């Protein structure tokens, strides 16, 4: 298990592994938004939480096809499926590796991007908290989508369509936390909901994803 995690992390940081591309994409998105909606901080501040969450979500989304597709192409997935590791554990580990290589750098960089979008200082801790709590669910749901589309040739857009609706609850509660924190309200309720969603997803989705993989392997 540890070996699989280490291998995936190593692959991501070697040449062509795409480590850091997610952050770069996030940066571009944050740059593009003011071009779309105008440079005033009064226009940017209210949408900043939403944009930051959407950016995280899309950066996640665009890196999903790396989770299983590369392993399926070079035959590793067959070998992993016949190894002593249960396929559920493989899914969970790969989602974890995706989270570490994509979401974690993104969370680390998020305050910086918050500055770009004029997110006020008091909202920053809530931004971090909501991302830390919510992104594991994004990675896990993404792994499920990737498992379903692993056999398809250019599944990118289809993958997005399958996965985005699954992301909606996470997105809603995530932004609500920031908004309430920013307004000085009480973000406990959405925090609780978000934690519940993430816990449920992390506990149950690996089984669904492993089932999807088994179907695609045979």
């Amino acid at each position: 298990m540890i070996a699989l995690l280490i291998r995936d992390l190593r692959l991501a940081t070697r040449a062509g592994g795409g480590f850091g591309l997610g952050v770069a994409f996030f940066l571009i998105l944050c740059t593009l938004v003011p071009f779309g909606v105008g440079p005033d901080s009064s226009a940017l501040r209210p949408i900043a939480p939403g944009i930051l969450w959407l950016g995280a979500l899309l950066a996640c989304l665009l890196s999903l096809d790396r989770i299983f597709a590369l392993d399926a192409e070079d035959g590793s997935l067959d070998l992993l499926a016949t190894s002593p590791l249960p396929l559920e554990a493989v899914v969970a580990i790969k989602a974890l590796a995706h989270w570490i290589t994509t979401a974690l750098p993104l969370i680390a960089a998020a305050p910086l991007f918050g500055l770009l979008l004029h997110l006020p200082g008091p909202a920053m801790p809530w931004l971090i908290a909501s991302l830390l709590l919510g992104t594991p669910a994004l990675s896990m749901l993404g792994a499920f989508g990737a498992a379903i589309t692993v056999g398809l040739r250019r599944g990118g857009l289809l993958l997005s369509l399958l996965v985005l609706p699954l992301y909606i609850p996470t997105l809603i509660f995530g932004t609500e936390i920031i908004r309430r924190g920013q307004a000085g309200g009480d973000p406990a309720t959405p925090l609780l909901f978000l934690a519940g969603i993430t816990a449920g997803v992390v506990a149950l989705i690996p089984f669904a994803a492993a089932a999807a993989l088994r179907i695609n392997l045979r």
Partner: protein
Amino acid sequence: MSIWEYANPVKFMRASAAVLPWAAGAAALCTVIGLIWGFLTPEDYKQGSTVKIVFLHVPAAMMAINIWVMMLVASLIWLIRRHHVSALAAKAAAPVGAVMTLIALATGAIWGQPMWGSWWEWDPRLTSFLILLLFYIGYMALWASVEDPDSAADLTGVLCLVGSVFALLSRYAVLFWNQGLHQGASLSVAPGERMSAVYRYPLYLTMLGFFLLFLALVLIRTRTEIRRRRLAALQAKEVRA
């Protein structure tokens, strides 16, 4: 001997080994003295001690643009005359340029906090630098992603060409989109707008220092790339044999 001779890796290794100690030494000297001198300059009556940031901010901003231009020239030399070292020099320069852009952005942002009251404004000057950073990142990411070195050199060359046009275009678009807060060029020749000599001479020195620093770093990095390429070439021959 024509200047193109230096495009031969062996000759380049020899020549750069000779130049490198001098460039590195001069770079260290100019940068350190310039920065210390700059740090000791008196306060500005308007900006207070923040004026000292200029000795990092302006040289870095200048180099950020100049390095991209140098990459463009090197890419053109590769695309037209197929000198391999030229392509590797462009590759070597990109991270240096990206760091210079980052320094200009960071010092500007830190400066903006007391001057404009916010860390970041979507001022055209700042925004164009952010866009420049994006182009640097894309260029480096493409180099890292293409496995075949010949294709990588060609593709990044084409990207550099197209990217230059769009970086320029973006600058005009951004100017159209938002009015600026940032001051204009105060090194300009127009009298009255010039900054006083107290600031000007240390600034010249740090600018020279940053340029030499860039030169030294690019020479080292190009040598690194040449060694890596040679290693890969030897391995490829071994596999083929």
